[in-house]
């Protein structure tokens, strides 16, 4: 019956995660990704819950007699540990990416969730947008240089 509880939990987490991932708002996608991580971790964890036991930690190493039946299965835990950390890394990177996009595109109005379409008939528009990005960057660099020169001349 534990299996049933876990199955329901995994099902709900996966369903909600999928629904959020399919939304247009990128912030919802990040939320969905977080839920998906939990869902998959619970799925892996579900393989070891039916044989309850002690945590897989030897409190007294000298007394260990090779009786491993008292511990729960440690391998799913090791896998999930890696998974948690990696998924955090990915989530952090995506959040930084969103932040970056926001700073480039303050208005947020033409912020769509379209990825680059390699077969677009007129990729020109996107290229222009990229060029504009760099135009302001050049302006900023120029401005800074002028400021610096002004500061130096003041000295």
């Amino acid at each position, binding site marked *: 019956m534990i299996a049933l509880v876990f199955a329901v939990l995994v099902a709900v987490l996966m369903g909600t995660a999928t629904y959020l991932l399919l939304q247009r708002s990128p912030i919802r996608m990040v939320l969905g990704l977080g839920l998906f991580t939990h869902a998959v971790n619970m799925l892996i964890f579900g*393989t070891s819950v039916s044989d309850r036991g002690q945590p897989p930690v030897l409190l007294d190493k000298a007394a260990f007699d090779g009786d491993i039946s008292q511990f729960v299965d440690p391998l799913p835990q090791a896998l999930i540990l890696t998974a*948690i950390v990696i998924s955090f890394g990915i989530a952090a990177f995506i959040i930084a990416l969103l*932040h970056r996009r926001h700073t480039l595109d303050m208005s947020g109005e033409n912020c769509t969730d379209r990825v680059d379409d390699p077969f677009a008939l007129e990729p020109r528009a996107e290229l222009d947008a990229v060029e504009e990005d760099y135009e302001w960057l050049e302006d900023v660099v120029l401005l800074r240089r002028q400021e610096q020169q002004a500061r130096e001349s003041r000295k």
Partner: protein
Amino acid sequence: MLITLLALLAVSAPTLWLLKPQRWRHAGWLAALPPLVVTAWLLTQLGPVGQGAVIREHYVWSEAFGLALDLRLDGLSLFFGLIVAGIGAAIAVYAGYYFEKKTTLGYFYALLFLFMTSMLGLVWADNLLALFVFWEGTSITSYLLISFKLSDQKALEGARRALIVTGMGALAMLGGFVLLGQIGGSYTISALLALPPATFTSHALFAPMLILILLGALTKSAQFPFHFWLPGAMSAPTPASAYLHSATMVKAGVYLLARLHPAFAESPLWFWTLLVVGGITMLMGALIALRQVDLKAILAYATVSQLGVLVMLLAFNSQTAAVALVLGILAHALYKGPLFLIAGIIDHATGTRDIRHLAGLAKAMPLLAAGVLLAGLSMAGIAPTFGFLAKETLLEVFFYWMESGDPLGLVGLIASALAGALFVAYSLVLIWEPFFRRAAPQKQAAVQHPPSALFVLPVLLLAGVGTAIPFMLGIVEQGLFAAPASAVLGAPVTLHLSLWHGWTPVFLTSLLAIALGLLVFWLRQPVRAAFAQAPKKLNGTGIFDGLVNGLYTVADWSTRSVQGATLPTQVSVILLAATGFLLYAGLSSGTLLAELGINWAARPTFYEVVLAALAVVAALITVRIQSRLSAIISLGMVGASVMLIYVFFSAPDLALTQFLIEVLTLVLLVLVFFRIPPQEVQPIPKRISLRHLLISLLVAGWGFGMALLAAQRPFFATISDYFSLNVLAAHGGNIVNVILVDFRAMDTLGEISVMVVAALGGYALLRASRLRPVQDPSQPTPPKARSRRGDKNA
């Protein structure tokens, strides 16, 4: 010695390129030296090889794969080698004048000599795989030669078509070679041919093997229905067309068939395929040529027709057919080569190859007129030329077949005579119209650059050799004809060739064909007008282009629909595919579903059920709630419940890590998301929203099934026990930690690398964002980001 000659030609290719031959007046004569050396050496071998001697060379290439560079020179290889090297030398001289002072000459020589190397390697190779490598070498160099004029769109298309058709054929052939090697137990051609033919014909895989090999040979030799690439390849410079598409490369298929003839000739599949395909190609090529007005196009279709004759002859397993084949190959090379070269010189001198604009060239170019007479009469098969000798033997084959009582022999005889008649008509057209008639029907092209005598010399040499051979049969018969014919037949051949046999029925048929040809020539205007009316739609080129374009359309459509433009589409495709595969796996193997039972005995405690319920409710809230902050908090609720589940199910390390990560994620989300204003996202239409709901439910069902299955099967039991039992060897007490840092340390290293990359990437992104766009004072300021807090659309 053979490998030295191959190396000589291969090294000549870059050397000639580097020497910049366009700077010298008579560069062609220097370039002709390497192939002349090869020809001279081959001529010295005519005597011994004619007596049955065979030269073998063996070089280990890759021992482990059974690959060896075996070279073998017997009658057939020598015969083809002479054609390749001899005509190659003439072409090299000719090209020197054709490209006079043009900077592309060096590049042309480089390609030409690489092609020559591949072609010689092809006919000398005694290993199927080595033969395939050389075969592809000819395909690639010919591709580069056809697309020589890079600015010419038609040339590029023709080159692509030729490469695709012959390349696909070659791939099929490679499959056939592998089957052949498996059946015969060896990849050495001479070893395979030494086996009794029944070894192959009685094998279960004989038919697929033969069809695959035939595909390769027939595409290369431009046989129906793959004939359409050859006329397209005429965009190549004329020296290349003359060499590749009449004298050498297109005969590679014929060579391969002739080489394997002794092993397969007894099979009915071989006989009927070659007979039908060759016969159709012969007649079709000759008829289509009637429609053409371009000199090169006429010659190209005549070549297609002649190749059909050669393939048809290979169907027979008789001495006369083998001799007719050998005569046909050499005669064709010796008349079609010069005729192509003549077309090139006409093009060079007048600037057109259109037969409607040419007339009276004999006065301006008398040497060329002599050449066209020699070569053209041979093509017409009028006595006493070499072509006549070849045609007589061809007719003889069918005559014997007819005499043996098979009614099909008569059909073959009539078809061959008809093709012969058409050849007479073309030859007369080619001789008469450009050179001897008074005026052209349309605006006549004038001779602007009359060719120098040295330019015409290769034409006269080749045509002269062709004219001389019938008069010195006694000297060359044994080495040049009997030896290759015996190799084709797989048995010794004795020859008694002569120009005059008396008034035999064959000679009378030949006369009849010539008379018919004269009639067609006489009536050429109405005949051509009738053919010009024939429907043009149904040609191979159109069908081929349609197929290729269709392939592009399908690829484009499938990529667009699977790898759609939006992220949600891609995500749903991935998730639905995963669900589909699970359903398939579950339904196809009954055991998987049978195991899907629930162990009711293992009851959860009250707290555990409450925690799971909490997580479920929090997840649903995350979806439904409009406020961004509340959504982040409810996501944190899910994380907290999961963490507590880890605690209850004896996973302290996981709980600790999850707790830390949960806090970090929460902080990050709050920090970043509240710097980003809510977006003006258009509401999703009801229909699409419903679709999303459906997909989510499907994925939820997938997760449910997976979780139940995962609980039933001891997925990790065997390897987990190993880790648990050996934990003390790693001097650790915490088994999970020991697994991470000792047993699966590489996993952990990968995990750390991912973190480092993510951190570096995030740092770079955040650093870059310090550079803010500068406000242009002329533009209205965009709305301030942080001024709107009550976000509803996050």
